[in-house]
């Protein structure tokens, strides 16, 4: 199967940032895809399917994250993750 690599940058827009509940949503969404998914902030690169590692990003409001997916459904994965982070804002955007 073709190995696709897809990379995007997203910005955390919900005021409370990537705390545990949003991190769990991220991992749930990422885990629906077969592709490997890594997420990086400035210094850290973590596994987008590991809740402990995602919580370690401590991505505050305004933080930019690079999401890199590698695998057969990489394109769909980054689209879904962008939707979650930037459009739905983890269902907790500014009231």
């Amino acid at each position, binding site marked *: 199967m073709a190995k696709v690599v897809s990379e995007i940058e997203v910005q955390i827009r919900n005021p409370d940032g990537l705390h545990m509940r949003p991190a*769990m949503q991220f991992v749930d969404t990422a885990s629906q895809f077969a592709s490997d998914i890594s997420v990086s902030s400035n210094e850290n690169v973590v596994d987008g399917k590991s809740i*402990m590692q995602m*919580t370690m990003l*401590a991505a505050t409001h305004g933080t930019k994250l690079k999401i890199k997916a590698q695998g057969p459904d990489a394109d769909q994965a980054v689209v879904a993750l962008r939707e979650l982070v930037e459009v739905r804002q983890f269902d907790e955007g500014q009231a």
Partner: protein
Amino acid sequence: MKISDVVCYDAILPDLQSSTRDGVITELVKALDGAGALGTASADEIIKSVIKRENEASTGLGRGVAVPHIKHNGVKKVVAAIGRSVAGVSFASLDKQPVYSIILLISPIDDPDKHLQAMESIFRHLQRDNFRKFLRQSQSAAAIADLVKEADENPSL
């Protein structure tokens, strides 16, 4: 941020007595309260909020650790209590395994960034096999306190 910046050293319980999740949460919150770390918040109120949060989604992320946490406007700075259960406690963890180490975190409502930084430092340590192993084996509050301080100084621990 360092984990020792948030740990309340008077709220380290090396031998939790309770065998239930809610009992363990109660012990840890009362330890923080006894140490005067809860600001204007009442212990009962905090206990209820932590249990409510835990019922929404377990903070037992697997590998024998749980990090119950809430934000509350009664506290002015982020504080953490650490508890160790010898027998293990069911926390409805992601991996369905019992929890032996519990780090309870209470953060002010108006400083979400500090909360995230505290969580980052806690999970940076909990990620490490050695840190989890030593935490589970530490039999006194002093040993746990030493471990926390050492972990900050020695990232390879």
